[in-house]
Structures are given as C-alpha cells and as structure tokens.
C-alpha cells in the first residue's frame, strides 16, 4: 500500500461530501427558477441607467448645471404639476446619466420631466422598460415587502449554495482549469458550473450577500425595531437617514434652491451635486436635501446637506466623516449593481452576472443529466426547465418591445406581456420536446431582438451614443442566438 499524500488529510470524507451534495442539490432545485429570474434580470439591471438613456435617446445631455438652471427647471415642473406637490426629486447630470431630470410626486403619483441646459422643460422621460426591469429584479412586481423578501430569500439560498458548493466539490480547485465541452453532457455542464462557480466566487459572494441584505432589509429592520425599540422601526431608520423637517403645512411660495445650492457648493467646493430632494416645497415647513459626491475614490462618497425654507442648515453628514456602518450602507447598492467604477466594471459585472445566471440554470441541467445517465430520466422536468430557460429571454424581449412601442402606457402593460409570454412558453412545454423548446426560444428571442433594435432605431432616432451601443449589443445578441439555431452542434449543446 502506498502512503497517501499529506494534502489528502485535509479532504472531507466521502460521506460528508455526499451529504452536502444532497443539500446543495435540493436547495438549488427548490430555488432554481427564482434564482434564474433574479440573476437574469439583475444582469440586465446593471445597465439600468444605460437602458434609461436608450429609452430617451433625444434627451438633452449636459455635463453640469448652474443653480439658476436647476431652479428654473424645478419651478417649471412644479407649475406643470399644479398644487399639492408633496415631493420633488431632481437628478443632476452625472457621467452615467447626463440629464437634468425633475420628478414630482403628488397624491402618490410621480411624473418625470427632462430639462435642457437652460432649465426649459423638454418633455417627459420614458422609463417604462427600465422601471419594469428593475422592479422585476427588486421585488418581482409583487407587493414590495413580500417580493423583496422572496428576492432576499433567494440571495440567502444562493449564498448557502456557494457554501455547500465549495464543500461538496473537493476537486473544485484541483480542476480549476478544466473546461471540457461537447463530450458527455453531464461533464460539460459540471465543468461550466464549477469553473464559473470557483473563478467568480468573490463576485458571487458580494452579489448574493448584498442582495440578501437589501431584500431582507424590511424584515431585519422590523425585527430590530421589535427587539430593541419596542416595535418603533422609525428609530432604526432615523439612525441612517437625515431627520424630517418640522411639519408646517401653511402655504408658502415655492422654495428657492439658489441660495441652498450656493451653500452646498461652499461646504463641498470639490464636490459635485448629484441629487436634490425637496419635501413639501410649497409649504412653510418645506426643506431641501442636497446629495454631493465629495470623495470620488470611495464607493459611498456622498455627503448630504439639508436646508429649511430659510436656507438654514439643519443636517449635515460628510462622506469623509462617516462611520463604518454608514459606509457599508452606502456601498450595498453600488456593489450589488456594479455602479462604482464606470463602464469597465459594469461590463465585467454583466459578464460575471451572465455566469451567475448560467450557474443557476446549469445546476438543474446537471441534475437532469445525472438522472438521464443513471437511466432515470425526468422528461417532463426537462421540458419545463427548457421552457423556463429560453422562455424568460423571450418574455423580457417582448416586454421591451411593448414598453418601447407604447412608452406612455402604465407599468401593467410590460408586466402583462411578460406574464403572458412566460405562460405561453410554459404551455409550449406540453407538446414540444426540450430541443424544440430551446430552438424555438432562441430563434424567437433572436428575431425579436433584431425587430426591437430596428423598431427602436427607426422610431426613436437620437444622438445618444449609449443608446446606439445598447442597440448594437442587443442586435449582436439577437444574431448570436439565431446563429446557434442555425448550427446543429450548438443547438445540441444549448438544450
């Protein structure tokens, strides 16, 4: 008998591995569809701001605005909305979204308007598709607390799968460079699953942990409030948010933002005002909160200054003085969506996000291939899974066409289109084989993507290069999908 290498002593026992693999497999199957949908929409949501520009290619673009321009645009939006505006949200131009956009909120309804460099309103901002997409990712278009909880739970399941996945695959690092495609289906899927899992592990952990915390935040804050503040969750929020202004509902002329703008600039001379939020702008108790990006080398580099009607500062929090908890809170969103270092990181997030989406899909493929290899195939599940995998890109593309075609429609339109196409894809699993479902899904998605880009280019011509880049990317994706349909060996690999 030869001596075992020393490294083997660190290997977990086969029984342990098999037990963990059982849990890994069960958890992956239980959450497969939710994880696939959340990961797919999350990958697209990385480019949410680019999609906003794609929906508004003619929006006036600028690098910065003056206090005068800002004030003029906000007053015009306020006048257009009429009496009773409760909040106004103003996005100032930045690199990702070089617009001046004013959103008014009245009776719970919001209206977003774009303005030019002189502060003149140019029209409404179309954001039906980007809103549909981001809300689908954040709360699945369910009531916010329930939907957020399900998405957060999916994040926990993903995190748990990462833990069990590493423990259940003792060869995962030894085989770190093996990528064998085209042979046994199970070997191909296992190689892809394990390579993507291990090389992007830090990304997977970051995205699942931040996503879980963001999704579960309502529950966690509720429990914290219950356990520590006798059920008063407002006390938890007040630790992180600027205080509300003193309520005084007496009517007053609209707030003048110009002196506040000057003060914010004076307090952060090297900063860049990115966002202004007004509370009750036509009441005596009106106030304005200015968010200023002051430290570009930080993920959470935003300082906040709040002024009352008289222009007196009643709250100030500087990014450079924030504590670790505030820094973590400010970093959760940017780290989750890849919004902290420009296009290179966004593209990398897009690639890694596609990998994570494949991870969710591939786990089920491995299970199905394992059953087939063992002579216990699950043909109905194979059909259902193929219809989910290839039905979702089709449903999302159809929703995008509806949103671009009827930009003034209510959000219910793309939701309905997405829902109907998803159901039709599931229904197609009844008569069609997995290979046919896959081919049909890829073919239709590819054709619809080409139609969408053509329709967009003709119907919404504009000079925004980001919109052109999105159209080119979508068209390339469509052509790639059609190419896979035309090549039988690729079709076989993508069932």
């Amino acid at each position: 008998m030869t001596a075992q290498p020393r490294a083997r002593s660190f290997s977990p026992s086969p029984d342990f591995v098999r037990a963990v693999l059982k849990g890994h497999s069960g958890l992956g199957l239980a959450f497969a569809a939710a994880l696939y949908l959340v990961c797919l929409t999350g990958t697209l949501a990385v480019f949410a701001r680019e999609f906003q520009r794609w929906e508004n290619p003619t929006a006036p673009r600028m690098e910065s605005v003056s206090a005068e321009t800002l004030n003029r645009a906000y007053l015009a939006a306020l006048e257009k909305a009429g009496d009773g505006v409760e909040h106004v949200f103003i996005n100032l131009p930045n690199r990702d979204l070089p617009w001046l956009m004013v959103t008014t909120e009245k009776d719970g309804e919001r209206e977003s308007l774009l303005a030019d460099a002189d502060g003149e309103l140019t029209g409404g901002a179309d954001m039906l598709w980007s809103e549909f997409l981001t809300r689908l990712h954040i709360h699945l278009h369910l009531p916010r607390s329930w939907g957020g909880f399900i998405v957060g739970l999916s994040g926990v399941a993903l995190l748990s799968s990462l833990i069990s996945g590493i423990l259940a695959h003792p060869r995962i690092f030894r085989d770190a460079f093996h990528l064998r495609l085209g042979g046994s289906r199970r070997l191909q899927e296992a190689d892809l699953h394990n390579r993507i899992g291990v090389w992007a592990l830090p990304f997977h952990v970051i995205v699942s942990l931040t996503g879980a915390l963001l999704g579960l935040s309502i529950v966690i804050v509720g429990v914290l409030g219950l356990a520590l503040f006798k059920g008063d969750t407002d006390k938890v929020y007040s630790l992180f948010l600027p205080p509300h202004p003193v309520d005084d509902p007496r009517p007053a002329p609209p707030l003048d933002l110009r002196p506040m703008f000057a003060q914010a600039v004076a307090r952060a001379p090297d900063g860049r005002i990115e966002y202004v939020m007004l509370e009750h702008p036509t009441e005596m108790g009106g106030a304005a909160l200015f968010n200023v990006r002051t430290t570009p080398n930080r993920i959470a580099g935003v300082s906040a200054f709040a002024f009352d009607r008289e222009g007196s500062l009643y709250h100030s929090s500087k990014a450079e003085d924030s504590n670790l908890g505030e820094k973590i809170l400010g970093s959760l969103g940017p780290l989750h969506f890849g919004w902290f270092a420009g296009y290179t990181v966004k593209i990398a997030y897009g690639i890694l996000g596609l990998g994570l989406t494949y991870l969710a899909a591939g786990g089920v493929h491995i299970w199905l291939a394992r059953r087939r290899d063992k002579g216990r195939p699950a043909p109905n599940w194979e059909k259902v899974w193929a219809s989910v995998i290839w039905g979702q890109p089709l449903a999302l593309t159809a929703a995008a066409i509806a949103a671009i075609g009827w930009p003034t429609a209510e959000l219910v339109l793309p939701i309905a289109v997405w829902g109907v196409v998803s159901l039709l894809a599931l229904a197609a699993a009844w008569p069609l084989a997995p290979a046919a479902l896959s081919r049909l899904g890829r073919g239709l998605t590819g054709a619809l993507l080409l139609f969408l880009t053509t329709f967009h280019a003709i119907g919404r011509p504009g000079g925004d290069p980001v919109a052109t880049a999105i159209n080119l990317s979508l068209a390339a994706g469509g052509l790639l999908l059609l190419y896979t349909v035309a090549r039988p060996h690729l079709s076989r690999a993508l069932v």
Partner: protein
Amino acid sequence: MSDAAFAGLMLLMLAGGAAGALLLRHAWRLREGKTPWRLAGWATLVFTMVWPAFALGPARGPFIAITLISAAAFAVVASSLQVRAAKTPRAARARASGGDSLAPEPAERPTTPWRTTLRWLLAGPIGMVAAMGIGICYAVWMPGETQTRLLIGGLIVPVVWGAAMAWTLADSRILRATAVLVGTAVVGFTLAILKGL
C-alpha cells in the same frame, strides 16, 4: 484622475488577473516543481488586489480588482477549452455505472414526510430566526458606533442563515440541528432584549 489613467489602471488589473491565473494554470499542469509557480500565481493575484487600494481607494480599489481578476481568469479558463466528440446517452450511462463518476453521487438517505418538513423548516424560518438572534445579539453587545453594529449585525443574518441552510439540508441528525438552531435563537434574542441598545 484622468480617464486615460483610470483606463490604464483597469488594464493593469486585468493583466494582473490574467497573469496570476496563467501562472496557476502552469503550476496545475506540472507533475513536479509546482510550488514556485503556485506561489507566484497566488502572489500575483494578491498583489493585484492590494495595489489598487492605494491608487483607487481602500475599498473601491480592491473591489474593482476582484471584479476584473474574475473576468480575466474566465478568459484564461476559456483559453483552456477542450472540445470533445459528443457521447451517446448509452456511453454516458456506461461511464457513470462503471464508477468513473464526475463527482460523488448525492447521499440517498431514508426520510419521512415529517423529517422532510422539519428539515425545510430548519433551513427556512427556524434558521432565519436563529440567524436574526445572532445578528441582533451582535448589534447589542459588541462595541462600536450604533450604525456599524446594526449593519454588521444585519450582514451576519444572511451569512448565518445561509450557513444554517447548508448545514440542516446536509446533516442527517435532524434533531441535533433543531436543538442547536432553536437554542441559538432563544439565547440570542434573550441576550439582546436583556441589554437593549
């Protein structure tokens, strides 16, 4: 920092990630004398994660590096791609039954409906309550700013819940898992309520 300089740093990080992965791949392929290559590979990856902290911010830099290293490593792994001839299902079955398995088969354990129900309750709501007990206990008892304690306590919740899920779905001693998770929840919440913020 100018756009060109920023892009240059990004390229350096991509190059560092690719170089580290290539060195590791070389080490993996050797039968002997792996250690220097393996050390060089890991050192390159660690260095690529550390230097951006000085150039692009102590948190932002390493997070950019982690992202770009993963993307560069994908490219290296993709360059190792082997394309094989398709196997028939019968050949694949023969391969699996011949003991040449890809990975261990998941455990086949006898179960009953109540054990399955309890297992998923442990992985779900009971694991969540236990994780919240630990998270809140941390927020209450650890030193530091209130916001920091609350945020780290919040981050603990999904991590512990995820670990509890992985454990309870794998462990065949389900009553032990029940006792540990229920005990953790009771102790955690009791300690938290006793002290308060």
